[in-house]
């Protein structure tokens, strides 16, 4: 009798994403158009399993499950999938489902296969403070947005390469139009910057009330990630950073953001209670 705990559902989600990845890879290798509906269905199934797993984990840790490396990877994958389910349905982008499956499968299966990442389950890390929990969840959600932005940028680079080098057959034939990719990338960029800004604002409110509880490195890194994306967005709006260079920047920024995750998610020295946060001067 299987144990229907959080990890069971998360493994199921990982299996779904892996199925999407395998089917997508087979379709690409066979140079056949993959069924967007089927891919969407597989991702939806994975998403439902992952949501169930994270929900159970949330009940166990009494808060948003972003307390250790395992949970952070799972939550980031979940955020990216959430956005794909919205964007994929709206824009009907071919191959984005495949790439999302690839990202979610990687984040999901890597975290599941690293038991050390899930040894310590920190319970009630937000001290019942809904604002801090909101801040953390929003920050990680924005990382999910940036993950999808990086995927869209990779698709953009591939399409750009194919058009410039007149390589339009094979798997390149299934890439979305370059203008569509640019539009989606812009919306994701704006959404990511706004979400992270909102998260930082909420976090700043708490930090101002208890400066000593947050590592300065965490503040610097988080602010730097936001600043980098914001500057890139500003340059994009001014027409300075565009097309291929912008896509490369988005990919590089996401890699940097991913590497900074361990610093950003580091635990504060001591968390005030909800009451202390709300009543502190």
């Amino acid at each position, binding site marked *: 009798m299987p144990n229907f705990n959080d990890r069971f559902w998360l493994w199921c989600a990982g299996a779904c994403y892996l199925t999407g990845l395998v089917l997508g890879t087979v379709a690409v290798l066979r140079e056949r158009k993959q069924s967007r509906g089927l891919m969407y269905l597989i991702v939806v199934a994975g998403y439902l399993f992952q949501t169930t797993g994270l929900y159970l984990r949330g009940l166990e840790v009494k808060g948003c499950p972003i307390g250790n490396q395992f949970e952070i990877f799972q939550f980031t994958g979940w955020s990216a999938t959430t956005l794909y389910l919205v964007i994929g349905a709206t824009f009907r982008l071919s191959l984005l489902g495949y790439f999302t499956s690839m990202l979610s499968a990687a984040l999901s299966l890597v975290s599941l296969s690293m038991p050390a990442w899930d040894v310590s389950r920190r319970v009630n890390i937000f001290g019942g403070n809904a604002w801090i929990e909101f801040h953390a969840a929003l920050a990680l959600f924005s990382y999910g947005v940036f993950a999808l932005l990086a995927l869209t940028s990779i698709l953009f680079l591939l*399409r750009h390469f194919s*058009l*410039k080098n*007149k390589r*339009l*057959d094979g798997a390149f*034939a299934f*890439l*979305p*139009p*370059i*203008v*569509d990719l*640019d539009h989606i990338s812009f919306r994701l960029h704006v959404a990511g910057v706004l979400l992270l800004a909102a998260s930082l604002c909420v976090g700043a409110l708490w930090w101002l009330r208890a400066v000593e509880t947050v590592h300065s490195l965490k503040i610097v890194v988080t602010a730097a990630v936001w600043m980098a994306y914001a500057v890139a967005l500003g340059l*994009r709006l001014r*027409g300075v950073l*565009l*097309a*291929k*260079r912008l896509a490369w920047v988005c990919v590089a920024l996401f890699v940097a953001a991913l590497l900074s995750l361990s610093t950003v998610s580091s635990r504060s020295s001591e968390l005030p209670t909800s009451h202390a946060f709300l009543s502190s001067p």
Partner: protein
Amino acid sequence: MGANHHTTPLELREKLALTAEKLALFQQSAAQIDDLKELAVLNTCNRVEFYGVAGSLQTVDRLQAEFCRLSGMPESNFAEIKKVAGGKEAIVHLLSVASGLESQMLGENEIFGQVKDAYEAALKRKSVGPVLNRVFQKAFQGAKHVRTNTAVNAGQVSIANVAVELALSIFGDLRTTRVLLLGAGDIGEKTAKAFQSRGAGSLTVASRTLTRAMELATEFGAVALPFEQVPLRLHEFDVVVCSTAAPHAVVSQTAAEAALRRRPSQPLFFIDLALPRDVEPEVAGLENAFVYNLDDLAKIAEKARVARAAEVSKAKQIVDEKAQSIWQQISSHVGSTHRVVTPNPAQDLSQSTT
């Protein structure tokens, strides 16, 4: 029975093609042929074919005689170019035609609609019965299966369609795409027409002689633009189709750079169909500018043609299997047709045409 582009040169096909009036007359005459139980006529610019259920080959001869009488072609001449197939072979032929395997441009999709139209017209006239109904419906399913499961219709094989397909992979939606036709070359016109037929947002024509530009603009329902204004207004367009006869490039790197600066986030697609080339080669190196010349488009079209040809044997195998299955389904019925067929198609034909 029929004749098509494989055996019949264009001059003869022109004579064979039935006008609407002649087609109606022919069907009236065919309805009088006693032993002709069912009939559908496929009449396109590349083929005139008759699909029917007949009791004997003499019926086919009578049909041929009626057709030659109406088209004005001596029977002896028609006999040289006609193709007659019966039983399973006829079904194989219909499936091959509907799948685009018999088309002049291998794998083209238009023929599928034309076969459907032919069947629907026959249905309307009630000239098809249980045999042809089943054959045509199954043939449509079979043809769809061929197109879905092989790459026989993959890619584009004409320069104009390749250009439009490329624009789609850049802009996605052509409804907001502004096209500039630069020059009055024949292939440029065809490409512009292809853009229009695929719903391009707007078309502007510029030619070195304004009168010619205005003529073309009128023909296309487009706007004419004085040639000398092109460099200054290049940024207003998404797709520039070049086909001038100018001895030198008419789109310079400087002009393209200036245009791209004024539309920084929007790509500019140059389709250079002119010889010598109209777009300076350096333009291709500009970020967000995509330049395809005649050779590039021809290579893509050729690749698609080769890819389609490579799928023919696979497609033919599917056609053969499907035809075998259809033939098995109807063969028992065909055997009993002469006794069972109702209503009398001749009577129905006359009713529907009066």
